[in-house]
């Protein structure tokens, strides 16, 4: 299975390894809770993944101090923050700014358009990425808001603030 083997100017910003590991430990309990709830609420989503339920995806928000490892296997679901220097060998890598990745997850942005504009980078197994995209696209409503709701008013406030902060920031895309 092909993997992302080449680095370039759009790589994630360098972060001190110790900070990355600390950030991963801080967010991990939240991620575990979120992914279990989303999986429970949208069981049929996994059907569209076919054999790629066991593919390892590396979702890489370039401005974050860590990446996210997703294995969408309903029998053994994995969604964890990983320091980039300790990321697993992934079947597919999806890379972009966090806001874009969030909007793609919620179908607020179009994946093909993000790919055409070069704001979204995918490498590795293209079929796996296409299946994941189609699975997420068949979900009604906002996964991000469902996740925020898990944490009540503070969760919703954080999501709102996150969106506002990105909206106030000029888009720089991948080529920075």
């Amino acid at each position, binding site marked *: 299975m092909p993997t992302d083997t080449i680095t370039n100017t759009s790589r994630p910003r360098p972060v001190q390894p110790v900070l990355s590991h600390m950030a991963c430990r801080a967010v991990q309990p939240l991620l575990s809770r979120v992914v279990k709830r989303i999986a429970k609420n949208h069981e049929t989503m996994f059907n569209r993944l076919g054999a790629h339920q066991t593919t390892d995806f590396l979702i890489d928000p370039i401005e974050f101090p860590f990446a996210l490892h997703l294995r969408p296997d309903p029998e053994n679901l994995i969604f964890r923050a990983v320091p980039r220097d300790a990321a697993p060998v992934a079947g597919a890598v999806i890379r972009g700014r966090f806001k874009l990745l969030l909007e793609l997850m919620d179908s607020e942005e179009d994946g093909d358009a993000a790919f055409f504009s070069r704001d979204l980078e995918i490498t590795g197994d293209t079929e796996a990425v296409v299946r994941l995209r189609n699975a997420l696209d068949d979900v009604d409503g906002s996964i991000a808001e469902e996740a925020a709701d898990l944490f009540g008013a503070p969760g919703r406030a954080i999501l709102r603030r996150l969106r506002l902060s990105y909206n106030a920031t000029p888009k720089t895309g991948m*080529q920075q």
Partner: protein
Amino acid sequence: MSLAELICPAGTPAALRTAVDAGADAVYCGFQDATNARNFPGLNFTPEELEASVAYAHARGAKVLLALNTYPPAGKVDLWRQAADKGAQFGVDAFIVADMGVAEYIARTYPHIRLHLSVQAAASSPEAIRYYCENFGVKRVVLPRILTIPEIREIRKEIPCEIETFIFGNHGLMVEGRCSLTNYLTGQSTNLDGVCSPASDVEYIRHSDGSMSSKLGGFTIDSFGPEEKAGYPTICKGRYTVPHRTDGYYAFEEPISLNLARLLPDLIDAGVHAFKIEGRQRSKSYVRSVVSSFRNAVDDIRAGRTADIANLVALTEGQKQTQGAFATKKWR
């Protein structure tokens, strides 16, 4: 004035609901198999999903058109017949077909359900279209994207059925209905297997200078500079080097999308009954944006107002758009 129905794409039930809610008059979709020309991984409808989706659309006054627009290989025609049987059972409003055998089966078995002739059939002359109308009862032809508006107007005068034209989306012409370029590298067929450039054969590679190569079946078919907009990984839109063009050039077509927003009044005046938006493989976000934009535009035109057409270039391939052959026979 023609009805100017808006025919919208849906690759998932959620996309179908999005299209209906955004103002589609009809939505076209397909099953999760080779019977339709967007047989992509993780896309399309199970029979149960189609049944529920037809009910959703009908409850809101929208139609559902089932795409059975590929060509059955010998010995496999039962898959297409069974798909037609399921579509009829669920109450679809029309079948979109390309193959005469499939058309004949539906015309004979379900004469009360409309037949639309797919663009895949490549029927572009009045004589060819009339043949389908007279022999299979075809009620609408989706014209290939190779005709100017004056030519469409002339065809309209000579055929007994409605005309549907594409107005937005992928602009991949070639010999429509018989493209075998993707077979050449992958063994999979656009017209027999329903998939062009299967995702399992596509690979993107980023290079250290920020450029990106797209490969199909192990062959590099394009390379984009760090700041360059990208397109789909199809052979017809690949960039190639030849002895007299060592910098690489688009030998067939460029990555570009069709956008006829500004030609809608002319198309209506020419007698086009329905406008088709391409993109069953695209997201709900695309469906929502494009359908609502064209819904507003068509409503404005029908009300005698100047259409307020949103800028959709961000959704186009390579972030470039063309009016293609509709405006001029030479559009490069």
